[in-house]
């Protein structure tokens, strides 16, 4: 599978979370939210329970990255589940302080 394109959107199967891909590495990615695989944003809601180990929530406008730093997702709708790649939780990317230029 080719790298996910920037701009691709997913939603959680088990909570309100929606994300957009900012950057992604090549290959098959096992992305999940709340412990269940992420769905295409247009898919019907699957329902189900949030896994208690993946229940830290997502915040709108925040970016989530893997440890390698090559996967980056932007949360466009918040929810109660948390994001993971291959079962490993993604972490909040620290905001870089840029001067306001406009």
């Amino acid at each position, binding site marked *: 599978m080719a790298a996910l*394109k*920037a*701009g691709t*959107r997913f939603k959680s199967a088990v909570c309100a979370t929606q994300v*957009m891909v*900012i950057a992604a590495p090549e290959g098959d990615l096992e992305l999940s939210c709340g412990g269940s695989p992420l769905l295409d944003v247009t898919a019907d809601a699957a329902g189900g329970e949030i896994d208690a180990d993946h229940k830290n929530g997502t915040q*709108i*406008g*925040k970016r989530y990255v893997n440890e390698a730093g090559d996967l980056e997702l*932007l949360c*466009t*709708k*918040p929810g109660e589940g948390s994001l993971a790649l291959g079962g490993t939780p993604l972490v909040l990317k620290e*905001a*870089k302080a*840029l*001067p*306001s*230029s*406009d």
Partner: protein
Amino acid sequence: MNTMMLLEMAAQAMSERAAVQCGDDRWTMAELFSGAGRVASHFRSLGVENAALLDVSSPAVPLSLFGAGWAGLPFVPLNYRLTGDELDALIARITPAVLVTDSDRASQLEGRDGLTLISRKELLEIARGSAEPAEPDWEMDPEEIAILLFTSGTTGVPKAAVLRHKHMVSYILGSVEFMAAEESDAALVSAPPYHVAGMAALLSGIYSGRRMVQLPNFDAASWLGLAHKEAVTNAFVVPTMLARIIDELETGAAIAPASLRSLAYGGGKMPLPVIERAMHHFPETAFTNAYGLTETSSTIAVLGPDEHREAAGSPDAEIRKRLGSAGKPLPGVEVEIRDEAGKPVAIGDRGEIYVRGEQVSGEYKGRGSLLVEGGWFPTNDGGRLDEEGYLFVEGRIDDVIVRGGENLSPGEIEDVLHEHAEVADCAVVPIPDEQWGEGVGVAIVRTRGSEVSAETLQAWVKQHLRSSRVPQHVEFWDELPYNETGKLLRRKVKEALGGA
């Protein structure tokens, strides 16, 4: 990707926050969102291909911009100073189109082929109306065109820069933190809608959650008055605006607003004396120089507040010079300096500025992409990078003076002249020369009361640069010709000094 996504996020997370105001007309994020949905429904019903705007700043600008994005139409903000044939030519290039404009213009333009007119007042009524907003069904194709922006055409027929949703969204995601503004923050928006800085200001304001206070027609007294009245914390100005604001402060008619935390400037070269005076009058304000082009979705490099202070206070001449630099590229933007053959030059050498990044379009409608191998955009701006990676911009490549086979950069000579205490402004241009092909001509604006001579200024240049750079023809003018967004009309200077 769609710029609408930015507004949707803001309306979700900050629905009741003030988004934009102009005079007494105020819109929250939620109102802007539903208003854009009604505008989108209306635009769709018209069967047009573009949504254009020929008007000053007002809430109709973000409503049309987002309404167009929602409806899947390119938004085309036109320069409201254009009239007659120039305007007709641009309109012919975008029809069938809907055009949002003021009532006077709307009646003048009635009956044009392919043009559906909506007055500003009508558009605001549609947006405030009771109709159901469109379903949130905007296209998320990142390749769709978000904005078509005609370049100012200072050198010829205006070109329509194509800014796709991916470019604008990448710029915002790369440079603005979502909801970073405090609820009490306010940005004073004085860049006109037809300037890329005006478009960028709207998107940044929405995404950061900073209330936007629009100033439709700039003059220094109104700008200062509004900044005081609305406790403005952030603003962007072009260099000519900043110079006028300082002049106004120096007359004693107004004082600097203490609320102003951040003042960004760009859109043209800032003369060093102007920024130094500005830092003196706004001692508590953080200054940011933003360098960018229409074709790069606005800002690609910034000189931040700390760098301003460090450069201004440094005893080291090399560091002090950085006050005249464009700073360093934004994260996600790469900059290279290349020679005429397109090969990168050594650090410190002059050449053409090339830029690469997700926000870089480099495409004109009907002309295709100007990107070269590897996705690099040749900006046609000349410049250099110093040892620390600071970018110095030295004017358009086309402006280079070719004297006996030697390329002279007007910017380099102008920088030296600006450092002379009695030079208020200057423009160096090529003039015909029988012996060398081209020679160096300069139009100088002296500081008030100065009677400095051409010989003194020629000697000053000779003291700092090689003798080939010394202007052979010096004229003294009352002022230089600038367009309304602060761009020097170099061609006019060139014509007046006898160049073609």
